């Protein structure tokens, strides 16, 4: 409300990071993707929809600076501007933490709509870190989205839950309910991909997962020690020095912004195969 956009009007795109299954890497991905977008110069905010648990602040490393939260804003106890925490590393990055004391019912559709509308007028990208499950909290996180990143591990229950979430995205969202509007653009982000186990036949391949889910691939993030290290120190992995995981997230971010980037897994290995399979996709 206070700052007029000086350059171009902001893109105002809402992207939900969702999965159904818990613990697959939604918060890790939300942190990495938002930091990656901000690093590319996009004004980005990442919102924690996991009301009651609040993990995003720790992953982003701003847990000691939380004063007001998303629920305070929805309930009118604080203004949005007061609740946004400005990242200390990238100046186009902001965090909207969630409440630890309320429950998910505090997320009302009207409240979420109001906050997102205000954010759309100021930010290029609004990244919504969804809670696990397919209940109210997850539905609120996806309802107003323009795009979805479905985080999936190459493992049966994760793929199954991703399929359910894809169903919800195409039926229980504003875009699905509004006649004449384009459906949510959903893409799969495969995380915790372990190439050695895939080669041993212990883990499904990227092709297997895509064949089942039948949606475009945003990227493949390898199982990586860099992720635990980054979360230990409270730094999104893309801001924490070079690693295969950081590279994978950077590539995914570029694809989100519409750039064509060759699909690669852990550096150059098998690039040929993936180029042939997915290079021209999307």
């Amino acid at each position, binding site marked *: 409300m*206070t700052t007029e956009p000086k350059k171009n009007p902001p893109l105002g795109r809402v992207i939900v990071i969702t999965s159904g299954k818990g613990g697959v890497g939604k918060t890790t991905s939300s942190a990495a993707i938002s930091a990656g977008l901000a690093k590319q110069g996009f004004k980005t905010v990442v919102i924690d929809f996991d009301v009651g648990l609040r993990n995003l602040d720790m992953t982003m490393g701003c847990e*000691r600076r939380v004063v007001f939260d998303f629920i305070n804003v929805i309930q009118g106890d604080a203004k949005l501007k*007061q609740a946004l925490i400005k990242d200390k590393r990238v100046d186009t990055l902001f965090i909207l933490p969630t409440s630890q004391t309320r429950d998910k019912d505090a997320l009302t559709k009207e409240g979420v709509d109001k906050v997102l509308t205000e954010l759309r007028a100021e930010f290029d990208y609004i990244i919504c870190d969804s809670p696990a499950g397919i209940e109210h909290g997850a539905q609120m996180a996806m309802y107003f989205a323009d795009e979805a990143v479905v985080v999936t591990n190459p493992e049966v229950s994760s793929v199954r839950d991703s399929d359910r979430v894809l169903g919800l995205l195409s039926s229980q969202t504003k875009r699905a309910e509004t006649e004449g509007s384009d459906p949510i653009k959903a893409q799969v982000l495969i995380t915790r991909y372990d190439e050695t186990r895939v080669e041993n036949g212990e883990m499904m391949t990227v092709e297997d997962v895509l064949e089942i889910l039948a949606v475009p691939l945003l990227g493949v993030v390898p199982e990586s020690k860099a992720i635990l290290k980054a979360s230990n120190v409270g730094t999104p992995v893309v801001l924490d020095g070079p690693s295969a995981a950081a590279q994978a997230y950077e590539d995914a971010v570029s694809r989100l912004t519409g750039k064509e980037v060759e699909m690669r897994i852990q550096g150059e290995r098998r690039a040929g195969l993936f180029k042939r399979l997915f290079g021209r996709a999307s």
Partner: protein
Amino acid sequence: MSLFSFTRKKQPKSAQTAKDRLQILLAHERSSSGAAEADYLPMLQRDIVAAIRKYVPIGDTDVDVRMERGDQMSSLEINIDLPRIGKSKDS
């Protein structure tokens, strides 16, 4: 430059950083003052707005209260946007 990169400084291991961060955070969350914090900050903000308004016309969002919780002490940062005469300027 390259010489120094070999002499690994006693850079803290990330697991230790994780533990330190958790200890500080949880100390705040567990203490009763941690719960009370959430209550007094909005009120403090309202009072500051009211006090400034006695002298300068400011809006509800022109006072920004920020907190940084520390190990030994926490710091409170209060930013007040005062209106300027004439053309308003963005930060």
